[in-house]
């Protein structure tokens, strides 16, 4: 379970990115976070990954209060959260196999398991035959699949996806969304930050709309709400 309780985030520059935001996301839910640029979506993602600490309010993931987590324990929290970035953020000098295996090496998975699990994860995302390719040799959609495989290979309880279809054409976008839905059906909580109106409207999932750092709407089986 993921809980944000009256979270406010003010940057040192004086900008208030989030203002008194409270959201509870149950285990196994699929939630879209929507909003225009500057609405606070990216800040929200950074808070959930503990890249930033809120100015006030509390964040809890799976019962762990972020405020009480010591710096040395941050990696443990992040290992339970799979993350897919908008611009993929793959390790450019490592091939597809190594990019996915890297997530397992971090958690000290025995090499024999890595050799078994990475290929099966790559097959799941449809890249079983491209394991030797380097990121620059892949299309945007393929790179996003690698990022997804990397995020899922450790079976995280929560998957955060920041604009996972932001750089993709409609077909690749739907492929990725179908994969996310598949993952969600297996029990993983999925939080997707997106601009993609068509996908949000078609998937009929919970939609939380942010505007200027405040939640303006939170609808189960909702659609994309125009802010103006």
């Amino acid at each position: 379970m993921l809980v944000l309780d009256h979270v406010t985030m003010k940057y040192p520059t004086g900008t208030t990115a989030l203002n008194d935001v409270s959201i509870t996301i149950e285990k196994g839910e699929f939630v879209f976070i929507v909003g225009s640029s500057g609405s606070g979506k990216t800040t929200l993602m950074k808070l959930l990954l503990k890249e930033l600490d809120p100015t006030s309010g509390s964040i809890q993931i799976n019962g762990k209060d972020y405020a009480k987590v010591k710096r040395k324990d941050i990696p443990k929290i992040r290992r339970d959260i799979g993350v897919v970035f908008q611009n993929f953020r793959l390790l450019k000098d490592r091939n597809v196999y190594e990019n996915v295996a890297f997530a397992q090496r971090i958690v000290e998975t025995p090499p024999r398991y890595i050799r078994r699990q990475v290929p099966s994860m790559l097959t799941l995302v449809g890249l079983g035959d491209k394991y030797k390719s380097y990121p620059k040799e892949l299309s945007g959609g393929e790179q996003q699949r690698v990022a997804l495989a990397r995020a899922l290979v450790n079976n995280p309880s929560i998957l955060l996806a920041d604009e996972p279809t932001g750089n993709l054409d409609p077909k690749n976008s739907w492929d990725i969304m179908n994969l996310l839905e598949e993952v969600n059906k297996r029990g993983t909580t999925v939080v997707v930050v997106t601009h993609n109106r068509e996908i949000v409207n078609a998937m009929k999932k919970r939609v939380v709309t942010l505007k200027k750092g405040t939640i303006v709407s939170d609808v189960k089986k909702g659609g994309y709400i125009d802010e103006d």
Partner: protein
Amino acid sequence: MKISTLWYCFQQGLKNIKRNLLFSLASVGTIVACLFLFGIFYAIVMNFDAIMQQMEESVAVTVFFDEGISEEQIKAIGEEIRIRPEVNTMDYMSAEDAWEYFGPQLFDGNQEMIQAAFGSDNPLKDHASYNITVSDVSKQAELVKFLEGLDGVRKVKSSEGTAKSVASINSLVGYASIGVIVILLLVSIFLISNTITIGITIRKEEISIMKLIGATDFFVRTPFIVEGITIGLAGSIIPCVILFFMYGMVVDFLSNTFSDLMSWLTFLPRGEVFNTLIPICLLIGIGIGFVGSVVTTRKHLKV
């Protein structure tokens, strides 16, 4: 941490060198250049120091005694002198030894003339002496003052001018060595930290990705440390090897070209210089690689 993870980090460190070959070569080059200069200077200073020491040893004080003094009294004075801390070596030359040594040099070595002039007399009968070398030429004046104050001592002969020159050259070289070594080390640290900072900045994104997907600081940092130490090691071995061969060639060249000066200009054997230079260079190289990678990764690990 598991052995397999440590092994992975070690392998990644070596692979990083290959992945960032240009940066790695630049770093090795910087360390090589700095340690090469350091090594040259170190060898010069060591040799200069040895020459100075040799010169110090050749600066001697000679003590002559009152006329008619007995050999026992001279020996008693000798014991008094020997315990002085300034004394390095001390040789006794009796009046007979002195005549035996200097006599044949008179009248261009003409024995007949010597015999005619002195017969069986020893004109140096009151010239028994102690020839003393000092451990530190700057203390010579102090010793001379002490010797002049001793009962039974007639005359103390010392080369005050030479002693002063050697002492001041010695202290000048001492200060200059410290100055140049400090400047060289500062320049090295600046150049190397600059090179490493550029390398780390290029990989800032990589470090941040690793951290965001749950890597610990240790996991991220270890390959960088392996990389830094390897680069430092390579950067220190290369100048040591070059200097090792170069030293022999330069010494041979100088010995052949300036053979007239070789009576007072003697170079240290290669082993003596490199026994200390090699460990110092390796330590500096490995140290720079280790500290450089730890310090520069630290600020990027706060993700």
